């Protein structure tokens, strides 16, 4: 019964169609048309034909999706430029779709499909006669289905050969060939191309399709082996599905990272990277959506026109996929690299891949990097302008560690080379580090707030706001500018603070004056005052007493006019002492630098100052000793007259001993005063002047530290305190000890002489008072008269002369050793010392063989 109904309806349809096709052609000369009336043969013929078509098992090539179909029709209208009609259609469709329930059309999709196909056919038919585009080949469906009724189109094709082909044979041959081809295709593959395209599209979203599935063994998407398709198709599907494999990888990374995120393992840069990848994937999804919509359209066997419809074949798909595959490959590569990396290292690794000649890749990487680097640049910005280390996941290339205030500058922050992305040069990184460090130093050590203004000013000068998100990847110049501006201002501010508020220069000068014994009168006083005290054993000396003496020395010298703040910092320090050490060995001065200057004058720096002080102190002491020896020696020209009474032999002996003593003293004095001069003027003052110049030129604290370091180093090196001149230094100390011995010897000598003198005068005056006072002297000769006196004097003088000779010999051998070592020293300035000591070439001539 159903069939009967269908037949009736078909009959009606054929009838309507045939009659309709006649009537709407009023402009045609109907009279010439032999088919003006529907004769029964024609009707039967048509009916048969229609039934045959309907009974054929043609199936729509696409899935039955009503909404998608409507969408497709609408888009078609839009592409034809009929947007208003498209809107009307959409409106109608929504009403049409809402009609449900009894009486409504059940198979709405079928209706829509019918509408579309018929309208397309109409359009083609309308276009064709006027179309200048050669229609290569007829559509397969047409040729397959029409037996003999289709001639019109093919005939038209004939014009391209230049001859109007009337014969039907070529057409038929063509049709037959096409049919055969289509059959061949069907035989070869069980699965139609549309289905494969759909499956490939699924695979590219990481979803298993009906035929294309993920294969764990080959690690990729592939067609089932059991499905019969041509080899070429299989390979092509496999190639296309590379995209799916890559997609899976990228997607997997993103979801993994996002899952891991709360565990603090990914970091902000990693997050940014994931977000950027996600955005790229969104783009990719858009493309897939378009492609999927296109996949709705059936694939003709051959393209109808050059600009034929928007269908998707595997080949078209491979063209569509060309660009996404490149991007996806790139993303997969990046994902691989970045799996183990974090923070700056990740950005650096991505940057390494941005160096690419392909503009597509380049742009893509740039876009990606801009996203990835934004947290990093944000960190740089806040570090440089605010000194804040906003680095929760330790991704930044500046690493901070909690330290005490005095070592904040040197150890508080350091660069993490692993996290330094390669697009930031090491020198720039250094500057970035220093700028932030300066801010922190100002904040922590100097308790200064003025840097904020400097930072704002710097940001304004660099043309960025102090707000977030001012910088991005690829704007390395802008970053450099910002860093430079900020560094310039903040460093300047820091130096201002250090110089003006903390009086760095004054303190340096004070250290030079007191610790390096630059203040002559003060040193003299101090030496005079503490001298007797320091001769005591070290363990009996009281620091407080020495402190009192220091205060006295300050008050009695020009140092009293110095700043109170500076003088307060000057202290006496007793070094740890062993038994048998004298006060001289342990006494030293100390200067308390305090925060923030202890960044410059660290403990190690101060210990070097202490070494220099000890050396200078010793030198001063030797000089002082020599001077005081001179004081006792000086009056001998007067006293020598009083020795007339002595025997001639004794007198000669006395005079020769005195002369020996004088010569030795002179030699020592020459050496010590020249050494002293060298230290003061060639070493200290020269180094100080260099330091002063460099202090002026210093642009930041590092420069200042370097200048100071250089200053100290040059003093140490030139004063023979360096490691390389250790031997020379030791010789020098032996020389000093010798000089000190000489001093005590000279004292004894003169004491003896005075006594002899006193005796000889006593002989005349017979003053017993003096006698009793000398009772401690081990001299029974005192009372034995003139002869015994002479005898004793001779004995004393010869022993003295012996000792002097001894010291003199030792001294001269040591000194020549010392002088001969000077020229081989590394430091050029030590040669000046040699010139100075051996100015008259006395020493070099006395030992010509060396």
């Amino acid at each position, binding site marked *: 019964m159903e069939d009967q109904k269908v037949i009736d309806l078909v009959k009606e349809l054929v009838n309507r169609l045939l009659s309709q096709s006649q009537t709407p*052609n009023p402009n045609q000369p109907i009279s010439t048309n032999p088919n003006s009336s529907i004769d029964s043969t024609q009707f039967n013929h048509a009916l048969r034909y229609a039934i045959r078509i309907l009974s054929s098992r043609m199936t729509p090539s696409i899935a039955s999706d009503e909404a998608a179909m409507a969408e497709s029709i609408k888009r078609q209208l839009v592409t034809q430029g009929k947007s208003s009609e498209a809107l009307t259609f959409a409106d109608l469709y929504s009403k049409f779709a809402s009609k449900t329930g*009894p009486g409504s059309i059940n198979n709405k999709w079928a209706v829509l499909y019918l509408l579309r196909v018929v309208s397309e056919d109409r359009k083609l038919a309308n276009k064709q006669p006027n179309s200048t585009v050669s229609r290569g080949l007829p559509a397969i469906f047409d040729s397959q289905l029409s037996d003999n009724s289709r001639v019109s189109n093919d005939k038209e094709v004939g014009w391209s050969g230049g001859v109007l082909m009337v014969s039907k044979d070529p057409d038929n041959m063509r049709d037959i060939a096409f049919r055969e081809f289509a059959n061949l295709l069907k035989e070869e593959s069980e699965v139609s191309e549309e289905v494969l395209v759909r499956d490939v599209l699924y695979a590219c979203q990481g979803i298993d399709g009906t035929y294309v599935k993920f294969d764990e063994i080959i690690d990729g998407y592939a067609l089932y082996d059991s499905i019969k398709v041509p080899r070429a198709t299989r390979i092509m599907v496999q190639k296309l599905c590379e995209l799916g494999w890559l997609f899976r990888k990228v997607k997997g990374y993103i979801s993994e990272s996002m899952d891991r995120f709360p565990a603090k393992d990914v970091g902000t840069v990693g997050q940014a990277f994931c977000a950027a990848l996600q955005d790229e994937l969104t783009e990719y999804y858009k493309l897939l959506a378009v492609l999927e919509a296109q996949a709705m359209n059936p694939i003709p066997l051959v393209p109808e026109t050059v600009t034929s419809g928007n269908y998707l074949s595997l080949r078209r798909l491979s063209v569509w996929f060309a660009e996404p595959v490149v991007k996806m490959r790139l993303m997969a590569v990046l994902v691989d690299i970045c799996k183990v990396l974090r923070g700056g290292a990740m950005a650096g690794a991505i940057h390494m891949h941005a160096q690419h000649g392909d503009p597509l890749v380049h742009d893509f990487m740039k876009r990606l990097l801009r996203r990835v680097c934004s947290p990093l640049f944000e960190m740089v910005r806040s570090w440089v302008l605010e000194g804040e280390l906003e680095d929760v996941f330790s991704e930044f290339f500046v690493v901070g560690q909690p330290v005490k205030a005095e070592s904040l500058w040197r150890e508080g922050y350091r660069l993490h080379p692993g996290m330094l992305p390669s697009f930031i040069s090491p020198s720039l990184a250094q500057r970035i580090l220093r700028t932030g460090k300066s801010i922190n130093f100002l904040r922590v050590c100097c308790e200064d707030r003025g840097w904020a203004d400097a930072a704002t000013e710097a940001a304004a000068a660099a043309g960025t706001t102090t707000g977030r998100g001012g910088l991005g990847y690829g704007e390395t110049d802008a970053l450099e500018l910002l860093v430079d501006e900020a560094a310039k201002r903040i460093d300047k501010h820091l130096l201002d603070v250090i110089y003006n508020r903390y009086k760095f220069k004054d303190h340096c000068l004070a250290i030079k004056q007191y610790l390096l014994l630059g203040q002559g009168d003060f040193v003299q006083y101090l030496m005079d005052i503490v001298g007797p005290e320091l001769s005591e054993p070290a363990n009996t000396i009281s620091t407080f007493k020495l402190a009192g003496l220091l205060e006295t020395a300050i008050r009695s010298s020009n140092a009293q006019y110095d700043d109170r703040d500076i003088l307060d910092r000057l202290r006496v320090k007793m070094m740890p002492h062993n038994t048998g050490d004298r006060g001289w060995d342990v006494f030293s001065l100390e200067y308390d630098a305090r925060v923030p200057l202890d960044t410059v004058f660290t403990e190690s720096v101060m210990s070097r100052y202490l070494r220099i002080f000890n050396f200078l102190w010793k030198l001063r002491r030797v000089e002082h000793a020599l001077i005081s020896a001179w004081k006792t020696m000086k009056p001998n020209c007067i006293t020598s007259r009083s020795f007339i009474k002595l025997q001639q032999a004794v007198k000669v002996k006395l005079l020769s001993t005195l002369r020996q003593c004088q010569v030795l003293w002179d030699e020592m004095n020459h050496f010590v005063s020249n050494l002293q001069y060298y230290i003061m003027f060639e070493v200290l003052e020269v180094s100080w002047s260099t330091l002063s110049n460099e202090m002026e030129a210093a642009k930041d604290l590092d420069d200042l530290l370097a200048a100071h370091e250089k200053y100290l180093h040059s003093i140490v090196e030139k004063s023979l305190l360096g490691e390389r001149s250790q031997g020379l230094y030791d010789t020098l100390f032996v020389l000093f000890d010798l000089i000190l011995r000489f001093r005590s010897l000279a004292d004894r000598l003169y004491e003896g002489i005075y006594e002899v003198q006193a005796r000889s005068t006593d002989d005349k005056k017979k003053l017993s008072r003096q006698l009793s006072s000398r009772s401690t002297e081990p001299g029974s000769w005192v009372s034995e008269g003139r002869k015994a006196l002479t005898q004793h004097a001779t004995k004393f003088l010869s022993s003295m002369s012996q000792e002097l000779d001894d010291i003199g010999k030792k001294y001269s051998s040591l000194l020549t050793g010392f002088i001969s070592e000077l020229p081989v020293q590394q430091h050029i300035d030590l040669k000046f010392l040699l010139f100075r000591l051996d100015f008259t070439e006395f020493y070099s001539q006395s030992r010509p063989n060396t």
Partner: protein
Amino acid sequence: MDSDATRTARDSLELAFQMSNILDMGLDRHTLSVLIALCDLGLNPEALAVVVKELRKEPSQSSNIPADAPARS
């Protein structure tokens, strides 16, 4: 109930007809209703479309070609 169903059917047909007009199908209301009925009976729309196309082409070929051919040559 019956009148409801008829009205729905009429409305649907009307909408389909308007859509077909927009798509410039050149079918009258009756033909369309026959086609819709066939669709609802489960016939393949693809085949139906072919029928419409083929049967409409048949008569027009004889009138089109003579009119066009001289113009082209």
